[in-house]
């Protein structure tokens, strides 16, 4: 019957303190790998943003009200989100793409620009912030500015708004990713957890005899004696080395069967001996 063997805390602690070097090495290793990977393999991303205020003549905006209720806040949120959806449309995006190429000579497809595009309202107000995130800091600024130019006419076209005023133009992008410190930290933590996991699992599956209490607990028979290891077979002294090596081929290596045990009748007499041995059992069956 399978009994689930418990791993008590004391033993666990002992194991971990004994394998401390392994844990340390793994932690450092994974952390360093994460660091190097973040540093070299991941392309840095930069982000530029423009902020704009859309003044809507047809509807009353928050600024024109004397008292603002939460319903008003929600309404203006919705409004900004509408604008964002419009800006994300294919028409606007292709316009931006074409304009960018025309003005600055940079080639980004409308799909690409859409992937770089993100927009939101700033702190729940009616101010719209558009961010362009890409791998080239100058380009992100240029594209953002193109959006700033293209947005007003497009928004006017669809919603018949009044004016769109740009508050902040885009500057060459600031770096947003990858976050090297964070990645390295995650690497360290993962390395630590992984190495601890390995050690614990290895210990759980190790059912060898590790102490006399193990024997007592498993089999309920007495321990008659505990004999220390004589000499140290794992030391590099050559007598131990040769003895260990002899295990490779078995202890009787080089001896033929009739020589085993050190005594030999000689090959001829060995046949006699074998016959006599078989006779012992034959006689027994004959008597029966």
């Amino acid at each position, binding site marked *: 019957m399978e009994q689930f063997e418990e791993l008590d805390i004391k033993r666990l602690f002992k194991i971990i303190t004994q394998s401390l070097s392994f844990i340390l090495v793994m932690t450092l290793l994974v952390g360093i790998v994460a660091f190097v990977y973040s540093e070299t393999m991941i392309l840095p991303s930069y982000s530029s943003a423009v902020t704009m205020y859309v003044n809507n003549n047809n509807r009353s905006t928050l600024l024109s009200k004397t008292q603002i209720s939460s319903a008003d806040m929600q309404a203006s949120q919705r409004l900004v989100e509408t604008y964002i959806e419009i800006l994300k449309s294919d028409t606007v995006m292709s316009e931006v793409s074409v304009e960018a190429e025309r003005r600055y000579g940079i080639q980004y497809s409308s799909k690409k620009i859409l992937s770089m595009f993100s927009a939101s309202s700033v702190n729940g107000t009616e101010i719209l912030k558009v961010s362009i995130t890409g791998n080239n800091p100058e380009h992100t600024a240029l594209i953002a500015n193109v959006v700033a130019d293209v947005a007003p006419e497009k928004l006017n076209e669809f919603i018949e708004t009044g004016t769109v005023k740009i508050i902040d133009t885009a500057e060459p992008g600031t770096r947003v990713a990858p976050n090297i410190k964070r990645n390295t930290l995650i690497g360290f933590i993962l390395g630590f957890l992984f190495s601890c996991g390995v050690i614990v699992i290895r210990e759980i599956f190790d059912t060898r*005899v590790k102490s006399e209490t193990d024997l007592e607990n498993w089999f309920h028979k007495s321990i008659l004696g505990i004999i220390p290891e*004589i000499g140290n077979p794992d030391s590099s002294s050559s007598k131990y080395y040769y003895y260990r090596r002899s295990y490779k081929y078995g202890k009787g290596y080089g001896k033929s069967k009739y020589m*085993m*045990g050190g005594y030999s009748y000689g090959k001829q007499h*060995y046949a006699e001996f074998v016959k006599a041995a078989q006779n012992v*059992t034959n006689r*027994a069956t004959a008597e029966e």
Partner: protein
Amino acid sequence: MLQTEQRQKNNAKEELLKREFVRDKVLSNKTSFQVKEAYKALRTNIIFSLPQEGCKKISVTSSIASEGKSTNCLNLAITFAETGARVLIVDCDLRRPNISRLLEKQSSPGLSNTLVGLNSLDDVINKTDYTNLDVIFSGNIPPNPAELLGSDNMGKLIGELEKRYDYIFFDTAPVNIVTDSAVLAKWMTGVVMVVLYNSTDKDTIEEAIKQLEFAEAKILGFILNGVVYGNNGTYKYNYKRYNYKKHRYSPGYGKGRYYYKSRRYGRDYYSSDDGSLKKAAKTKK
């Protein structure tokens, strides 16, 4: 020419070192106090777990090969002989005998020779360098060791020996690999199991114990062999022992039978197959 000479020298050196290693293991004046005292404690425990009267026959066995049976059996016999009792040690591992190797004696006719009737009992009992200790070596390797050990001749032999000695130690083959040990159990006053520290698996020992209990052996207890102490006087927890798994578990079983390119080397000493079957199969193809 020079190469073979060099190789011979290396082999000779190897042999010497191996023999030195083996010699270290047997109790002598050189062994450390710690080891001697461990054996004395073991002796005390065994004496108290046995009846006082009559001849006490103890067999030393283990679950798999190379756990230290023969060494411990010999050392134990030496320790008992020091009390002044008449002690005999019998090498019952008729497939891979070790006592003659440990005592570094050229073994004479031994147990198997007298069991088949070719030698008398007196031919077979040898004295050792230790006082009060006699030895019966294994003798030649018979083709049917388990049958011989279970035969009436063995019973008669043990009956004879009982009259002459106070303690008889039987060094046997590993229980999980062959049944020699279980066959002997019916004549034994007690069976002692040797377990190698940080090396033997729980399942292996469980199997061995089941086998012995089924053969109605009286298991006296365990000897935990080869313990290594780390700092703080506790066991060194992660002592990595060179395990030689194949060697210890495999003889006679499936995959690991012939190891290291061994039609030449790797005969199993616990099986009677000497590779001829495999050769025949190959040549047929």
